[in-house]
């Protein structure tokens, strides 16, 4: 007998939903083996990562942290998923996230120490506009000159990082910071502070924005003609063109929207949990969001769950590091396995396994 991969006539809907779950289970098994090889109790390690943050002794602190960590991932991934569905590959969300943080914080720092109700809304607009502008660079280059948006958007991440360092050391540096790099702490500037809406809940405006984005994307994809065009372009570009879809307009829309959402995520982060523009402000949300988008099947509600799951592995991973002495690299490997196994298991969506007798296989 031999195992044969056979292409399905239609992608399996069942496996579309089952494969992320299977990937998580396989990741747990392989991760457990990794932890065991490191001399740790694998059951305890896995339980620490997945159980402790939600139901453990200090869950009252970790549960809100899941929202804090998950919100930027979800917000960015929602934007990316629109493009990914249409075959527009924005890999540079990290850069758009940085620029959004800079423009958003820039508004606050320029107006400091004025206190007014309109400062925070203005920061949101500025953050979105900054991300949008950064996303428009690869979009316009693609539309006008046919450049590859994957390369351009990715390279712009490194440009954005240099700009961030320059801002933290120069124009945005805290004049009362004794020469040290980093801006004023926006947490100490009430009009600009993206504070928790209910103390101790982890709910800040970024979480609200992420939830709105999920609903908005769901309606757009399911009910709106634009969502239909996005899906059609991804599945059958030629048919889309016959249906009157302008690929250029779609490229601009997808890169612009994902840029604006990433920029907003950066702004909410710099005004809230992080508090200041610093050289190391970005910690990879823009890249991790790519995993979240695919783990969530590019579906808005899937992304919501995937973002929370990813946040769980981060926070649980930190607990495992501190409580069980697991090395940081092992946790990163564990997260990497998740995408790896998801892509591997995804084969089952488009193919089915069949046991065939040797003779038939040879023929």
């Amino acid at each position, binding site marked *: 007998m031999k195992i044969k991969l056979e292409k399905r006539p239609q992608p399996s809907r069942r496996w579309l939903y089952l494969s992320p779950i299977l990937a998580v289970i396989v990741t747990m098994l392989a991760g457990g083996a990794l932890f065991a090889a490191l001399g740790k109790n694998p059951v305890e390690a896995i339980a620490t990562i997945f159980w402790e943050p939600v139901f453990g002794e*200090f869950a009252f602190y970790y549960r809100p942290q899941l929202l804090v960590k998950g919100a930027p991932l979800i917000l960015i991934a929602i934007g990316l998923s629109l493009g990914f569905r249409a075959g527009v590959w924005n890999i540079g969300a990290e850069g758009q996230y940085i620029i959004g943080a800079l423009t958003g914080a820039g508004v606050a720092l320029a107006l400091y120490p004025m206190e007014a109700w309109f400062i925070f809304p203005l920061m949101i607009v500025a953050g979105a506009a900054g991300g949008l502008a950064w996303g428009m660079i690869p979009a316009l280059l693609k539309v006008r000159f046919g450049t590859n948006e994957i390369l351009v958007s990715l390279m712009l991440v490194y440009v954005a990082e240099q700009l961030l360092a320059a801002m933290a050391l120069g124009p945005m540096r805290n004049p009362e910071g004794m020469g040290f790099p980093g801006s004023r702490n926006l947490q100490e500037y009430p009009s600009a502070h993206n504070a928790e809406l209910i*103390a*101790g809940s982890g709910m800040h405006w970024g979480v609200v924005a992420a939830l709105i984005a999920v609903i908005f994307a769901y309606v757009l994809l399911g009910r709106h003609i634009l969502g239909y065009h996005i899906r059609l372009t991804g599945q059958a570009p030629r048919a889309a063109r016959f249906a009157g879809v302008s690929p250029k307009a779609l490229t601009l829309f997808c890169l612009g929207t994902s840029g604006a959402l990433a920029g907003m995520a950066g702004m909410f982060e710099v005004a809230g949990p992080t508090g200041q523009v610093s050289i190391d402000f970005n*910690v990879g949300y823009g890249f991790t969001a790519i995993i979240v988008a695919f783990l969530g099947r590019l579906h808005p509600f899937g992304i919501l769950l995937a973002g929370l799951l990813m946040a769980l592995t981060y926070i649980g991973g*930190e607990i495992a590091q501190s*409580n069980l*002495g697991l090395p940081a690299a092992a946790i990163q490997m564990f997260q990497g396995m998740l995408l790896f196994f998801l892509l591997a298991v995804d084969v089952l969506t488009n193919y089915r396994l069949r046991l065939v007798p040797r003779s038939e296989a040879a023929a």
Partner: protein
Amino acid sequence: MTLKTLLTGAALAVGLAAAPALAQDDKTRVGFIYVGPIGDGGWTYEHDQGRLAIEEHFGDAVETVYQESVPEGADAERAITQMALNGADLIFTTSFGFMDPTISVARKFPDVKFEHATGYKTAPNVSTYSARFYEGRAIQGHIAGKMTESNVVGYIASYPIPEVIRGINAAFIHARKANPDVQFKIIWAYTWFDPAKEADAANALIEQGADVILQHTDSTAPQAAAEKAGGVVTFGQASDMAEYKPFPRVSSIIDNWKPYYIARTQAVIDGTWESQQIWHGIDEGMVEIGEITDAVPAEVRDEALALKDAIAAGEYHPFTGPLKKQDGSDWLAEGETADDATLLGMNFYVEGLDGEIPQ
């Protein structure tokens, strides 16, 4: 969220600080937050050696925990909070970028003691501590000035913060004293630990003619690059980096945190811990000079050791006038020494250095 859960949350938050101490047995728990991996062979490695020294010294009376490679920012705040929640009595946060998170968490856990390395913000339960690395830099600078044949010394800098600028100035002043023709070429790596970037920087400096490389980054990648290029002198940074002895690594600055960590842990056990700002140097043993190898001529070694002894004895200050700033304005008059406040906020080059501090 209902009012009841809110109140429960508030009650828990209030009870936070007291509860962990009760939950633990009488063991003292000491936590460490590291910016790099413990295997970096430099900065974080030496802090972890300090942690291990605590374990060895106190045995079963103390338990230590650590978290490595913690990003500076929101993630750091969570990592520190988590340690406090899990009953740590004393937490060392060992990077400059952990300053605001440390202060913020300390406010929520008034009964937990915090020690932040290289920062300037304190609180009743937050101390700061740092080492006078510039004393070691002066000795390195002297050796560098004597050893260079191309008269070009390369310097891999991390971030343009006072600590790093101070190191560049201290090394340059003493390199110039040893060799009036010496020039410094400085590359800003914008990282504390990134072997690939550090190797790139080292190679770029070597291509520009540097035959001595000083580094303010934590990995051994520059040592490896120098070894490969051949004929290039390096110094161990933060840790001895002894595996590159006797050449290219001819000496090193070693951060020795062990005595300080043991003393502070003891203070917590005794209940005598108080907030303070510590800046120790060669004299107190926080800064050590690693073995000067035979690759350095005997007379240069003797001079370097004499300089070290003079600094340790307090007879000589590495920043002694006459010194001018880069723009030619006067800084220190003949015989005058720099005060700590100026050194802690140092944001200018001394006369003779080329280039600008990134702004």
